């Protein structure tokens, strides 16, 4: 299985390459990608340097152009595709049908990967993208269970990549407007979710309050760990109870099911986190590289090492991890 790792900037890319990524994915410095955060992503000079660095070490480079262009800025997405082709990247990760049509028509040899934002969760949807645009791979939304992914690898016309580790979207990606409802900006339109510019923190007595566009997302007492106010991980009131009504602050961690992911036919594992620090990337990529190598050497003897899990737990959101939809504890 290919290990696909995030790179939000050149130091992170170096960290991913050095610690064992098979491929890195990154985005241009604008709203054409789904991690359009200030201080992240690559300008032209950094791109040349980064590509050379990865190529010299036989690591593939994928460019994420995975948001949905609106007419006023359509040219930016066209330009992004043109630029990716000029750079000679190994694949572009795309979500929008219009963008795919442009890329497939103008550059029939360009490798297209369907982004998780494309929201394909079954083989008929995958067939559409394969037949129309000749996509080579699809990243699957974090809504399917392991058995469902296993059935999908049997019927899918393309290779499947799944999320292995990192922050957890609980909604079907590409079909979530929660962020734009509260803040005006969403992953599909702007490449952001719960954007930092809409966040405010305030001490109210001994309680710390987090808000998004002035909507109260959570209240923390002194003994509680305060997390970033991502909408779906807030504490809200439903039916008279105050709780994490949608999901707790937690990260996805599939290390314990690594052998199963391989056995059911998954071709690539994606590490989430282009917004993370180079130190985080180094740690997570190193653990996953070791685990994959250990599995490859002796698949029958594979067992997850305590040190791996300890390291991953330390960097996980709220120090909690879950198998999410893969195991469906809520089912």
């Amino acid at each position, binding site marked *: 299985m290919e290990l696909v790792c995030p790179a939000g900037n050149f130091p992170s890319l170096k960290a991913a390459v050095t610690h064992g990524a098979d491929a890195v994915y990154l985005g241009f410095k604008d709203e054409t990608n789904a991690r359009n955060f200030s201080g992240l992503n690559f300008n032209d000079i950094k791109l040349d340097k980064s590509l050379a660095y990865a190529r010299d070490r036989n690591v593939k480079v994928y460019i994420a152009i995975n948001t949905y262009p609106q007419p006023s800025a359509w040219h930016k997405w066209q330009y992004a595709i043109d630029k990716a082709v000029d750079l000679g990247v190994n694949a572009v990760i795309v979500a929008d049908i219009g963008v795919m049509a442009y890329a497939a028509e103008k550059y029939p040899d360009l490798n297209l990967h369907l982004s998780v934002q494309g929201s394909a*969760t079954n083989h008929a949807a995958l067939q559409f993208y394969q037949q129309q645009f000749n996509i080579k791979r699809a990243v699957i939304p974090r809504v399917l269970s392991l058995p469902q992914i296993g059935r999908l690898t049997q019927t899918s016309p393309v290779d499947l990549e799944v999320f292995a580790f990192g922050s957890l979207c609980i909604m079907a990606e590409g079909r*979530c407007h929660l962020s734009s409802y509260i803040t005006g900006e969403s992953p599909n339109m702007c490449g952001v979710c719960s954007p930092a510019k809409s966040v405010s923190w305030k001490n109210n007595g001994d309680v710390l309050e987090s808000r998004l566009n002035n909507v109260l997302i959570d209240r923390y007492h002194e003994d509680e760990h305060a997390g970033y106010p991502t909408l779906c991980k807030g504490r809200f009131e439903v*039916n008279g109870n105050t709780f994490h009504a949608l999901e707790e602050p937690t990260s996805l961690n599939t290390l314990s099911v690594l052998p199963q992911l391989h056995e059911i036919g998954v071709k690539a594992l994606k590490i989430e986190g282009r917004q993370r620090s180079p130190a985080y990337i180094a740690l997570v990529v190193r653990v996953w590289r070791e685990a994959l190598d250990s599995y490859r050497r002796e698949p029958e003897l594979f067992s997850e090492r305590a040190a791996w899990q300890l390291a991953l737990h330390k960097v996980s959101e709220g120090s909690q991890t879950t198998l999410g939809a893969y195991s469906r504890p809520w*089912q």
Partner: protein
Amino acid sequence: MKISLGPILYFWERNTIYDFYEQIARTPVDVVYLGETVCAKRRQLSLGDWLDLAYTLSSRGKQVILSTLTLIEAESELSQLRKICQNGDFLVEANDMSAVQLLSEQAIPFVAGPFINIYNAQTLRLLVKQGLQRWVMPVELSRQTLDQILLEANKLGIADQFETEVFSYGRLPLAFSARCFTARAYNIPKDSCEFICSRHPDGMPLQSQEGDDVFTINGIQTQSGSRYNLLPQLTAMRSLGVDIVRLSPESSGMEDIIQQFHKARQSGVEILEVSSDSCNGYWFQRAGMENCYNN
């Protein structure tokens, strides 16, 4: 301008559904979308039942469209989808790309529902080639973006090949998940939910700890906390080229809402007053929850 009634998004009992559509048959609604779009477990009506209802409504002058499930994960859901696509008599609203695939490979025309991500005219052009006859604009898009998309569609020479429908009244469908948030609120597993969502015929309010309406929980779907209401925008929509306004079913008061929209389209008089707890931000390119009529 036509008025449509979107699919029922909530779990209603069988008889409630029949009573509801009996009322709807007597209203001036032009288009009715039928079927379950949220949860595959909700099968209070079989496909045969929905089709019978479709023939009845059709005989009473309504254009009937069969709506399909939005999040399709299992083979059983795909085979149900295939049956809907092959019904032979009624147009189908595709709410997932799997439906677009099944319909287009058989050269059957279709409506693209609000969760088919159409954000630009290039996407429309490709889907028109595949058989798209009508699209329901994604709810987060604005008047300005719609205007630009339709202008671009004109330049691409496809503007006369499809109709445009805009979600104009009701709680906005905002997100879908594998998880059931209603079951979560009751602390029961999804597999033994016993259709607890039937207790909430208009969804469960999710409020901030300060009592603000934030979202509405409806099984695996999350909706807006406030009702979207574009009643005062009918004239603007007509001049943009919107063909159909969609109203989303609620358990009570629908006839009154339909009458309000019907009167507004007949008289052409601008309506400026709507309930202050409704929202319209998306239309004005703002946060969806905002109410811009008072600005």
